[in-house]
């Protein structure tokens, strides 16, 4: 089933995917065990002439076992999840590559700070729906919304974060492979929600230098 996962091109993606696989194996095994038992019981203990059901109200030992075993598995899973979660959502690495993305019905407005490195100045460069970044570089994004809640979703980077009006939320990623990746909105944002999408262009350093020279240079285009 997990073969349908989109190709991962992020640094934290492998951690997320390995948890996904681990939970998949645990739940699949549980599903198979319970289903086999259920089918077996239903067939073996179907009504037969002359046989009476076993009169029992339970078994404390069994019940303690099947309380403690799932509890232990679930607690271990929680602790395994904590570090990856912290890495993706709590400890964004420092970087000199910062962008501002403002979601609005029904576009991603992407702002580069220009040569002065500051947002909100005259040399800012704005693009609709096209996000260009270099490969193997930590990208920090200030995610905002100017109307309703949207969700910044990069399936290939295992990244999703809601953009909330009135808030500035920091998200980060580091792409590991050059290419063109889809950037859909994942939160219902109105009648144009479907089709609200952009593209993430991950460039090699040379390509990125060329693109930024053509598009981010100080002179007006």
């Amino acid at each position, binding site marked *: 089933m997990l073969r349908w996962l989109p190709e991962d091109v992020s640094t934290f993606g492998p951690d997320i995917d390995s948890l*996904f696989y681990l939970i998949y194996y645990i739940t699949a095994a549980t599903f198979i065990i319970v289903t086999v038992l259920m089918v077996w019981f239903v067939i073996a*203990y179907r009504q037969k002439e002359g046989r009476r*059901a076993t009169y029992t109200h339970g078994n404390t030992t069994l019940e303690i076992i*099947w309380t403690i075993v799932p509890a232990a598995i679930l607690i271990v899973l929680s602790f395994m999840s904590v570090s990856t*979660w912290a890495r993706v959502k709590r400890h964004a690495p420092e970087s000199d590559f910062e962008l501002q993305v403002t979601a609005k019905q029904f576009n991603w407005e992407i702002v580069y700070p220009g040569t002065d490195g500051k947002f909100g100045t005259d040399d800012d460069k704005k693009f609709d729906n096209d996000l260009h970044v270099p490969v193997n570089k930590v990208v920090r994004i200030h995610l905002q919304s100017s109307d309703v809640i949207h969700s910044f979703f990069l399936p290939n980077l295992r990244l999703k974060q*809601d953009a*909330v009006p009135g808030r500035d939320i920091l998200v980060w990623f580091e792409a590991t492979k050059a290419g063109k990746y889809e950037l859909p909105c994942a939160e219902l944002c*109105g*009648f144009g929600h*479907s089709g609200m999408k952009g593209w993430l262009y991950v460039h090699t350093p040379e390509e990125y230098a060329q693109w930024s020279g053509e598009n981010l240079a100080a002179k007006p285009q």
Partner: protein
Amino acid sequence: MSDTAPAEAAHAAHGHHEELGFLRTYVFSTDHKMIGRQFLFLGLFMLMIGGLLAMMVRWELAWPETAVPGLNWIPEPYMYGGIIPPQTYNALFTMHATIMIFFVVMPIMVGCFGNFLIPLMIGTRDMAFPVLNMLSFWVGAVAGVLMLAGFFVAGGPAASGWTAYATLSAKAAYTGVDWGQNLWIISLMVLGVSSLMGSINYITTIVNMRAPGMSYFRMPLTIWSLFITAILLLLALPVLTAALAMLLFDRTLGTHFFLPEGGGQPLLWQHMFWFFGHPEVYVLVLPAMGVTSDLLSTFSRKPIFGYHAMAFSMIAIAFLSWIVWGHHMFISGMNPLLGTAFMMTTMVIAIPSAIKTFNWLGTLWGGSIRFTAPMLFALGFVSNFLIGGLSGIFMASTPVDIFIHDTYFIVAHFHYVVAGIIFALFAAIYYWFPKMFGRTMNEGLGKIHFVLTYIFFNLTFFPMHFLGVAGHMRRIYNPTQYEFLQPMQHWNVFITVSALILGASQLFFLYNFFWSLFAGKKADRNPWQANTLEWSAASPPPHGNFEAQPVVYRGPYEYSSPEVKEDWLPQNKQLGTTGAAARAH
């Protein structure tokens, strides 16, 4: 209705009731059984509407922007020659979810079976507050009318999802829906009043009116589940009502509770909504668990495995349901540290659910299983709940949720849980139909209905996991707009075809239900040879339920007890001389 004759005969026989007119008997009845039936018909009517809305949603996803057959009569701008526009699509899934949750599962599982079963199963004449009970139904019916009225106002019905996230829902300009959303809010506030009246009634009745000998730990698990559900509703609904009032004020009076331009917080809505919303999930699923427990025991002819564990795990679920709401908000922008805390509580709430599943298995073990239609549906519920419970673990893990949040993986998960409740709902209808209407539904048709529903339910909802793994977002109008989803589009077609057959399979139920109402085989008092008190009353029970006050001597699950020759032992059967006679026989 089929119960007229016996009910009137009983009245005449007892002679202590004046004849009630048609209105007082069928419309403004204060009899808990008639109110239960009224909730059932309300729920079944809404089920048909909610199901048809789902079919339209599915059509759009499989064959985007093509005309839905037979719907070209719907005027513009709602549809264009049968083609669903995006605005209408958003309204369709919003209304589908709202109707299914608030006007199908709640009226049937809580409204119908709560009303019908509580007095009968605890051995009393009626609810504690019969007039409040009648009001509860009629206020609920008004809420239903208000909700459906949304389809007939300019701008169409609410289109901001059943979760109505602010700011989308807080300003008409963001969705283009004005009165549709207001009606949605008002309808749910009115429905909240109905549910509050019902839950106060349920709690009071169960606490005060149990038959002699019916201690809390002799109550059937169905009653336990309804009792806990009523407490959850009583505590959760005021939060929803408050949030809805704030939303309505934002929309109509210019307040800014959820609008940042006036200092409001969009996330406040999500916190309030899910603080109600997660207990609400258990309001929906606990009665299904209770009914399933009773049916598995009855048709395995075996006591429920671990009765106390079953009751306490429901209580545990109820407590924990108050501290897991943040798992709906992992990627909402809430402090990520809170995400970690809510992940822990969410993992913990999986434990009582696991206990219940294993105890159901334990109940089947060593049984003498009868494959009746209600038993098959109860087994179907267990099987679907297993999948829904396990898929919940994926989204409980915060890092995995980053990817699957707001995708079809979530849609698959909550349909396995919430739409899976329909199996318990059908099980309950097939099982208690003889008691409700004095006639039995056709078993053969019931089995065909089960097999088709089970197969096509799974063919509909299981592949949604595949779509979710591929990243398919929820609530999108046209999946073919996305390059990364195009290789998965055949699954959308597969799901839609399965869903259409699943919908059509319900005709077996509708035909069976209405045919059996008038022409089904007459049922005797205890057609399933079950232990609980309702089976010692006439089918259907007259006004006042029991000929004499039942006295309870034991728990509800004494099947295949060595004390008697038969494999059932009713709760109110006194052993002693008769018991000795039975053994000697």
